[in-house]
């Protein structure tokens, strides 16, 4: 249970950082951009966690 919570917290942390990065880097902030950015950041958050775990395991 604790492991799952830790995994969810890590993905959430990645998501917050990556969504923030998206919002900083785009030209104009509107609802569609926010939606696309939040969705893309969710995929990238799982990717970020997977990459970190792969790097730690090496």
């Amino acid at each position, binding site marked *: 249970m604790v492991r799952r919570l830790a995994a969810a917290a890590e993905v959430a942390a990645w998501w917050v950082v990556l969504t923030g*990065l998206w*919002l*900083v*880097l785009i*030209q104009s*902030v509107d609802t569609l951009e926010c939606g696309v950015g939040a969705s893309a950041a969710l995929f990238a958050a799982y990717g970020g966690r997977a990459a970190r775990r792969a790097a730690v395991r090496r």
Partner: protein
Amino acid sequence: MNGWLAAACALLLVGFLPTLLAMCTGSVRRRVLAQNLATVLAALALLLLSQGWARSSYTDMALVLAVLGPVGTLIYERLLGEELRADRPSRRVTRTMTVLSVAPVPVVVVPVCVAATPGRTTLKLLFIAGLLVAGSALCTRALTTPPGGDGSHG
């Protein structure tokens, strides 16, 4: 031609052109180091041009270059590993190349940040600067330090 464009021209002529020449001549390590430096200088020139022509899309090009430049250099480092290990550079070369690839970043980014509208643009520019500094420092280190060593081999 405004000051930004003049600065971009100067950077391309004094910085980018010599690195292009260095990419065409010399040892493999020198060519890869020059290629790494060229991506940093090209990104900085794009930042100056985006300010000079007031086109923010040029900043995006600089961002893409700041991300892909170090990736390309690290791929070269992996592919040319044998040849790069064959001639180890002196500590002075390592230090000089690190300074050459990191020092121009604040010199260009700080004035561009001051001139840009404060807000997200500033954050974006600082992010690009961070990527350029971290990427070029990491790549120079990877190219000049022998595996398992600290670069102190003469």
